């Protein structure tokens, strides 16, 4: 037997995870990576600073097929869950704001309609949303109810065949630019979902400013003041809190991957910097302390990426439980944040500027740690799964 010399590992794909992807998955990754390189990276620091995300980007994401990409029919490509994860990773390697746009549009808003909507609602909304022509948002959180959405106050009261919607939703991504809001509200028969369209009398949205995280993403407050909704605006399939929670599980799955994208971008930036920045007569990458940082970052980056891939394959085989998703989100966001913070120290003072991607990703991940279930909530999900004892209350 001939033993060929094994090529030395590639710093950016140390465990050769590439080999675990199919040709199709590699192509999807390449398409998204190229898009991010040409459309996001040149301007993202400015968008972040200005607190904007160009509306046009939604259409471009749609043209590539990245909105609702894992849904089937209605103009959606029907890609695998793993492929969707890969796209989230590449988008977030650009910026979590761009990934959030795709997550909210595809996994929260479109998925809610896809999973719980009537055939008529699907036909009417999904094709335009897949193209990025119609923008959706997902309104669950309220000023007084975040981790505990079951207590929500927004309610829809029956009035003949119609509903009258009142209440406030808070921290809603894409809220003010949305053409259609998926709004969760109390009704006589429990929590239900409604499609509230832009321009309906009594529906207004105001943006939340002064965020220091996820700045390249619109976050809004939605106000409903006696908004009259026809019965056809209700999502017929959703019944109770499991309605929105099913959507959140979808979006969280993408975050498991996305967080590794942010981490990868910071790792790359720090590795590169460590090889060129000279102090005390040698590159800082030559100091043992820096090497330990890089090695630890590499370990968690590769482990987290393997975890994401494993969970992706499980999802594609319909073997993924929501507690698995909590496992992935808790671990990968936590580790991504640690990697970004470590990367920031390697960049020294440059690490606190927008000239480098590191502090942007680091700050973004603070939102990612909190939304789609805080790290504490996911810890409690795992605790309950392990012990059978629910520690959420009392």
């Amino acid at each position, binding site marked *: 037997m001939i033993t060929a010399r094994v090529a030395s590992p590639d710093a950016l794909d140390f465990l050769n995870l590439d080999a675990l992807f199919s040709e*199709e998955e590699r192509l999807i990754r390449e398409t998204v990576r190229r898009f991010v390189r040409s459309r996001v990276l040149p301007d993202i620091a400015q968008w972040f600073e200005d607190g904007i995300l160009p509306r046009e980007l939604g259409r471009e994401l749609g043209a590539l097929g*990245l909105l609702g990409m894992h849904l089937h029919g209605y103009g959606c490509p029907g890609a695998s869950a793993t492929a969707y994860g890969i796209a989230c990773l590449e988008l977030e390697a650009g910026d979590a704001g761009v990934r959030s746009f795709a997550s909210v549009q595809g996994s929260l808003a479109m998925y809610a309609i896809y999973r719980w909507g009537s055939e008529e609602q699907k036909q009417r909304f999904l094709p335009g949303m897949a193209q990025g022509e119609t923008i959706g948002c997902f309104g669950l959180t309220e000023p007084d109810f975040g981790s505990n959405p079951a207590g929500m106050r927004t309610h829809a009261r029956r009035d003949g065949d119609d509903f009258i919607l009142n209440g406030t939703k808070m921290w809603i991504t894409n809220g003010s630019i949305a053409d259609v809001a998926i709004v969760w509200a109390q009704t006589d028969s429990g929590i239900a979902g409604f499609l509230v369209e832009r321009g309906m009398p009594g529906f207004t949205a105001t943006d939340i400013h002064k965020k220091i995280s996820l700045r390249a993403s619109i976050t809004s407050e939605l106000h409903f003041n006696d908004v009259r909704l026809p019965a056809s605006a209700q999502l017929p399939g959703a019944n109770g809190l499991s309605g929105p929670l099913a959507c959140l599980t979808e979006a969280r799955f993408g975050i498991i991957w996305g967080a590794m994208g942010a981490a990868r971008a910071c790792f790359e930036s720090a590795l590169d910097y460590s090889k060129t920045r000279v102090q005390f007569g040698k590159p800082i990458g030559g100091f043992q302390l820096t090497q330990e940082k890089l090695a630890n970052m590499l370990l968690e980056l590769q482990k987290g990426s393997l975890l994401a891939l494993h969970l992706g394959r499980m999802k594609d085989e319909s073997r993924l439980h929501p507690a698995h998703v909590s496992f992935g989100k808790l671990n990968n966001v936590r580790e991504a944040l640690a990697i970004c913070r470590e990367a920031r120290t390697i960049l020294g003072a440059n690490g606190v500027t927008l000239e480098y991607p590191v502090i942007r990703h680091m700050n973004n991940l603070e939102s990612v740690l909190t939304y789609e279930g805080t790290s504490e909530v996911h810890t409690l999900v795992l605790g309950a799964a392990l012990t059978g004892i629910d520690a959420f209350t009392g």
Partner: protein
Amino acid sequence: MKIVVTVKLVPDTNAEKRIDPGTQRLIRTGVETVLNPYDEYALEAALALKEKLADGSTVTVLAMAPEATKETLRKALAMGADDAVFLTDAALAGTDTLGTADVLAHALKNIGFDLVICGGLSDDGSTGGVPGALAEFLAVPGITNARSLEIIDGRVHAQRETDNGYQVVSAALPVMLSVTMAVGEPRYASLKGIMGAKKKPIAPMALANIGAPGSAGAAGAKISLLSTAPPPVRGKAKVVEATDGLSGAQAVLDFLKERKLV
């Protein structure tokens, strides 16, 4: 009309390249295979032409490469090619440039074409010899280094890039044309294209299907490769540290003056 794009499958252009000292051939194991980047421009030109004609014209890609690299062609299908022909045969290993052009010509005659579009150069072999030889073997007009093309009344009209500008040339179809990178950036494969590529056919072709030209393989090669060596290691670069653009420019200028380069 039938457009055929010849596409070479090459080792990842970013990967470290190693030569097997025994066979003097590139070690392809463990290295991802990609479409020759230049050929993506050829494909882009073909797809753009097809879209512009909008008359039911088709784009076929043709690659001659080892069996294991076949799936790499999915990308060409994902970008928008209608189908692919994958020419492979154990007897092709070691084919030289002339042989490659001869074999490709046999394959093209078998497939049928109105217009063949090639890249200008392969990323690995880099002889640039295939397109010209191909036109010769096909006995059709060869237009090299085209930066744009259009079809008018059954003729190709193309702008050829030259050192001091460009020429406008025209030839009646069928034609062999090679492009430069000025024809336009290759498009991304969209998700729909990628998903749809699964269903597009990659037709296998072997030497026996095309009359087994004697030029194939190491046996038919007229050029023998004697040795290969890595490029010489570049001397250490001088790094200029500057606090601002002006002093940086001054330092570079001094450096060039010192060496009497300006």
